């Protein structure tokens, strides 16, 4: 106290947070850094993965990630457990497949499988798909129309939970039966296959596979960023509110039917886009890819990754499908059991999936490290910004305010 003021100004207290290092090490910067690392790794992936086998496989996982992030929005954020995403994957996939088939067949010709079934004239609903523009518009519009009609009907009647899940599943099954039954028009069980190119990209060449990979990765990135905006917007908050208390939201003056339908339609579009991209990547679209089992596998992947987080949904889709490929290569019969065990394990021990695991590790490691003496103990509270108070210690502001008034 007796020191002259000059000393005080020269030995000014360090800026809160520890200067530039503190500024750089915020949570936001950490996420941004991780995001950039992922981008760089993703950009370099084609140089490390074999272009003939590994890279197309990884591209396929990214397609599943696109579908998964949509499931994350509908299920994780909106509480709509959709077990029939195969329906929308199929709408996108077949729209794309039909165009590719007609492109290969050439003007005025019918696709090869129609010849085999004795269909000589192109059915009317195929005709528009000669145009790539129509096909791309259909990939977006068809799922929106179907999901909107379905949503308005179902959500207005307050169908939800298990009933909604079963309904979506039944629709996927019905779609598959329709496709299988119309052999001459849809290719039946075999589906649509034997594509030679995708918008000028040779899907059998290494170069073409790299291009497909970059396209898919870019689409995933754009969809992730868009859905992230949706989640962070008021709409996203409202969706969360509907998930946790749909009936209460009505008394806030909102119609949950509209909000849920929009979210469902968004998830349907992402599924269709993922489905449309799978077609050139794996070179086939058939009913077996859209049936109930693959639809549920998608949901399991999202659950494993963490349905409440969009990143979790992406990670889950990639990890689970990678595990599936790896395991079923080595132990073909064991994968199904392993997948079942994985799902039960996640539901029982990790309800928030891998992303939940990440958060609990992140929250507990500093505590553990301090306990073990690896890290120095926490500085006195208030030294660098007051630490957030514990959850149980919420002040009743009224009492605080009353005391303050009395003190004045």
């Amino acid at each position: 106290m007796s020191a002259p003021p000059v000393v005080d100004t020269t030995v000014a207290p360090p800026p809160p947070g520890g200067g530039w290092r503190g500024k750089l090490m915020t949570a936001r910067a950490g996420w941004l850094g991780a995001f950039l690392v992922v981008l760089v790794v993703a950009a370099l992936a084609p140089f490390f993965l074999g272009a003939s086998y590994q890279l197309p496989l990884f591209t396929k996982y990214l397609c599943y990630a696109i579908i998964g992030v949509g499931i994350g929005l509908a299920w994780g954020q909106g509480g709509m457990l959709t077990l029939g995403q195969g329906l929308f994957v199929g709408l996108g996939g077949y729209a794309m497949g039909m165009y590719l088939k007609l492109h290969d067949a050439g003007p005025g010709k019918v696709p090869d499988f129609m010849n085999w079934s004795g269909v000589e004239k192109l059915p009317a609903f195929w005709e528009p798909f000669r145009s790539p523009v129509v096909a791309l518009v259909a990939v977006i519009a068809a799922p929106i129309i179907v999901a909107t009609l379905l949503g308005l009907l179902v959500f207005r009647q307050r169908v939800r939970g298990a009933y909604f899940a079963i309904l979506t599943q039944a629709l996927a099954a019905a779609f598959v039966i329709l496709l299988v039954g119309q052999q001459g028009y849809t290719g039946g069980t075999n589906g649509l296959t034997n594509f030679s190119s995708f918008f000028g990209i040779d899907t059998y060449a290494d170069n073409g596979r790299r291009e497909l990979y970059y396209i898919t990765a870019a689409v995933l990135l754009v969809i992730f960023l868009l859905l992230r905006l949706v989640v962070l917007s008021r709409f996203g908050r409202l969706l969360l509110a509907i998930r946790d208390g749909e009936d209460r939201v009505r008394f806030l003056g909102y119609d949950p039917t509209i909000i849920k339908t929009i979210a469902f339609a968004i998830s349907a579009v992402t599924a269709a886009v993922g489905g449309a991209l799978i077609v050139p990547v794996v070179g086939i679209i058939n009913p077996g890819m859209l049936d109930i089992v693959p639809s549920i596998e998608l949901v399991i992947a999202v659950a494993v990754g963490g349905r409440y987080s969009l990143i979790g949904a992406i990670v889950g889709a990639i990890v689970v499908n990678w595990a599936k490929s790896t395991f079923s290569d080595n132990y073909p019969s064991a994968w199904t059991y392993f997948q079942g065990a994985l799902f039960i394990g996640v539901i029982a021990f990790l309800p928030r999936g891998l992303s939940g695991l990440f958060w609990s590790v992140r929250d507990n490691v500093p505590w553990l490290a301090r306990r073990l003496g690896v890290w120095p103990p926490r500085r006195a509270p208030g030294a660098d910004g007051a630490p957030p108070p514990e959850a149980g210690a919420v002040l009743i502001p009224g009492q605080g305010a009353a005391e303050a008034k009395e003190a004045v």
Partner: protein
Amino acid sequence: MTSAAPISSSAPADEALLAVRGLRVVFDGFVAIDGIDFQVNRGELRFLIGPNGAGKTTLVDVITGLTKPAAGSVTFAGTELVGRREHRIVRLGIGRTFQTATVFEELTVCENIDLAASFRLAVPALFRRRKGISDPVARVLETTQLTELADRKAGVLSHGQRQWLEIGMLLAQDPRLLLLDEPVAGMTKEERERTGELLQQIAEEHTVVVIEHDMEFLRRFARMVTVLHEGKVLMEGTVAEVQADPRVQEVYLGRKSEEGMAETPAGQLEAAP
């Protein structure tokens, strides 16, 4: 009961903000509301009391569209409410709270209030991100004294704070009629006091109907009281009139006992078993 005569004769119809006429609600053969006529005028603070099963919450449920009546009409500023969906009724300007405060625990206090304040936005505008705290939301935070907790998740709030948050969400909707269902149930004495002050503050600018049977709270803050019993209006009047009425005492205590009622220690008017 003959005392359930229409009150409409006492006030001109155009003054009535809310008018309930000949309302009847039946649940699986059980008559929950048996011909209620009930009116709330603009600017009024009305208390609704009655023993368990009297039909208080059912009445609010019918007004807000949660329950469909078997017969009768509910008009709000001349508009028929029966048959409208819940969110439409909210959009006409009626807001309510629930007996057990239901707030969105995963959202912050501020987000809860902001959502309540935003229902008039068109759907495309909802896709914009909330930037900071808007003035109406800040005012509500101030009124309910939740400003310090604005960025905390609603899940960590205490019971009393949840009730205030719910009242705050109701205020943020800026309704013309507020229906509060037992706002002080389960609150501590101080919390009840604060809620009462908040209520008086709100009643200065709004029309409010409060369901409450905390007698002490009623004595301190109520003006006009409507007593419901077995789905009918038993009587209407000031707190003193209601307390002095032998029928009310009979309903609450099962027998005539003037002192018993006035001195119920906890102030609870709940019917004795």
